[in-house]
């Protein structure tokens, strides 16, 4: 019978030989840059994507939670935090932010190609980049706020032959021998998952309070290295054409039709309140 996790030999954690108690961890955090929440987003005329000009970008919220967890692990147990992101030149701003927050180094897969947002391609690029790095643990968010495939983390784990847990809210225990995390299930149920390193953990947002950058951190970040890859880098020579790795083709991005015809209430707050209460009373929706 076929064995599910096979074909790859999971790499031993790099810190395996060190003291059990010390458990220094080299943690990599995968992050995505997404449009700022509540910003007004316009569709491109050709309906292939959004208009990026004049748009403010920020760190995907649950990726920021993952970075916060990584920084806490480093502070508690020692080790190194590396951040990795893919996207166009603007992504260097995200990486500088992460470095200012306390990450030690940053990796950038620099490409303006929209196709790299396909989680099949993105997870492949990331796996190739991580390939020969000494990493024990990869942290990322459950999903991005823009496309929300919630696939890249588990796909990356599969490509590396590592374990994973998703919808993680808490790390209960982290040693070189064992990792115990708390995860969410549908309807608000919680479960505990026990797995071995190396592993990929995908975090929910709102599980911690991400720190703010200090002036000292911002200054220090300027001296830190951002290592760059592009699609011509030798690591990616296996990507001969998009269709060899990519499995999703986005045909069109469009404004969805409204499901209901909305009655818009306008005027001063007092007038609006009166109109609403009158309408709801007339329909016997409120006492």
């Amino acid at each position, binding site marked *: *019978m076929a064995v*599910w*996790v096979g074909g790859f030999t999971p790499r031993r954690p790099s810190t395996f030989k060190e003291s059990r108690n010390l458990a220094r961890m080299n943690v990599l955090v995968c992050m995505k840059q997404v449009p700022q*929440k*509540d910003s*007004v987003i316009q569709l491109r005329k050709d309906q292939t994507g959004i208009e990026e000009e004049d748009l403010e970008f920020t760190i995907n919220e649950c990726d920021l939670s993952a970075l916060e967890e990584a920084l806490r692990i480093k502070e508690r147990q020692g080790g190194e935090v590396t951040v990795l992101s893919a996207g166009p030149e603007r992504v260097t701003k995200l990486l500088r932010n992460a470095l200012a927050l306390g990450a030690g180094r940053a990796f950038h897969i620099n490409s303006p190609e929209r196709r790299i947002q396909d989680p*099949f391609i993105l997870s492949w690029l990331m796996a190739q980049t991580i390939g020969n790095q000494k990493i024990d643990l990869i942290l990322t968010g459950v999903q991005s706020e823009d*496309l*929300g*495939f*919630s*696939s890249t983390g*588990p*796909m990356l*784990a*599969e*490509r590396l032959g590592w*374990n*994973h847990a*998703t*919808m993680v809210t808490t790390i209960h225990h982290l040693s070189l021998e064992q990792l115990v995390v*708390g995860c*969410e*299930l*549908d*309807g*608000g*149920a*919680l*479960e*505990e*998952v*026990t797995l*071995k390193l190396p592993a990929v953990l995908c975090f929910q*947002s*709102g599980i911690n309070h991400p720190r703010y950058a200090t002036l000292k951190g911002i200054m220090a970040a300027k001296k830190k290295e951002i290592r760059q890859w592009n699609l011509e880098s030798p690591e990616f020579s296996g990507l001969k054409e998009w*269709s060899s790795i990519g*499995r*999703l083709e986005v*045909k*069109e*991005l*469009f*404004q*969805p039709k*409204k499901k*209901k015809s*909305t009655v*818009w209430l306008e005027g001063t*707050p*007092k007038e*609006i*309140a*009166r109109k*609403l*209460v009158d309408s*709801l009373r007339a329909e016997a*929706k*409120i*006492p």
Partner: protein
Amino acid sequence: MEKREILVWAEQREGKLIQASREAIALGRHLADLMNLSLAIALNGGSAAPSPHEMADQSGEEIWLIDPEIPGTASYEVYGEAVRQMVSRFSPQWILMGHSSRVVDFVPRLAVRMDCAFIPGCLDFRYEHEMLSWIRPAYEGRFHQQVIPSGHPPFLVSIQPGAFARLAFPQAGGGMVHPLSLRIPSSTIRRRVVESSAGSAQGTDLAQARTVVAGGRGMGSREQFEWIHQLALLLEGATGASRPAVEAGWAARGLQIGSSGQFVSPRLLLACGISGAIHHAVGVSGAGCIVAINQDPLASIFRIADYGIVGKVEEILPALIEELHQK
């Protein structure tokens, strides 16, 4: 080999078919008729009510009951292997699933393992020129994207709960149940449910409430979230919250509405400072009249609103409270 072009992977929880799986079965039947394809349903969790036999008898569908049942605490390795064995048996073109936390956990891995497309969280489909494509939300539901799978089948698709509630559950009558024996590997990952249904455990009557007043990130602060409680009291309804409001600590976790909280179906829903991201929208798809108050006229909550108010909650809500007090 018993070829079935469409395979529905149906999940049961606590002895009940989950809503998204119910809709996946209805969609499977709809697509099978539309494209003239054969359909099989793989059902996990044998002790359910209605029993698989009752379900087959009423729906007229062919149900393959997974035996032995895969426990809810099994890891992604186990689920992935189960589906792989089904694929080698039925060689389906399409595999339809409800978008559940289980699916989010195991299907992306399985897709890479099989090198097959996975289109998660779909809201609709299009069938044009004999080609099936899928519609899924993007940018927190403000836009939709049309996606087609590439590469070789099977193509894996998961659907949002509520997205296909319009399709009737099949009722042709006279279906069959077959045992589906799978060799389930032992897992190296242990899972254990430590707290089930945190939401309902807190004793809120949110799910049954006839009126719900819900607040989101746009409420701005814990103090301003108090207006939600006041309005709920005045309207004799229950208080709800979107995930960001719960995360900010303004509302208890048990009040969360949406895919990781509760599903509500009140006659009247007041959505205040809620953008209407898909995780929340699926939780209110059963609501009757929806009143949305948001300062962003493009917020996706307005797509499902009967009454729309574009404005600041700190201006509208106090006025509304005063108006309700007057009568």
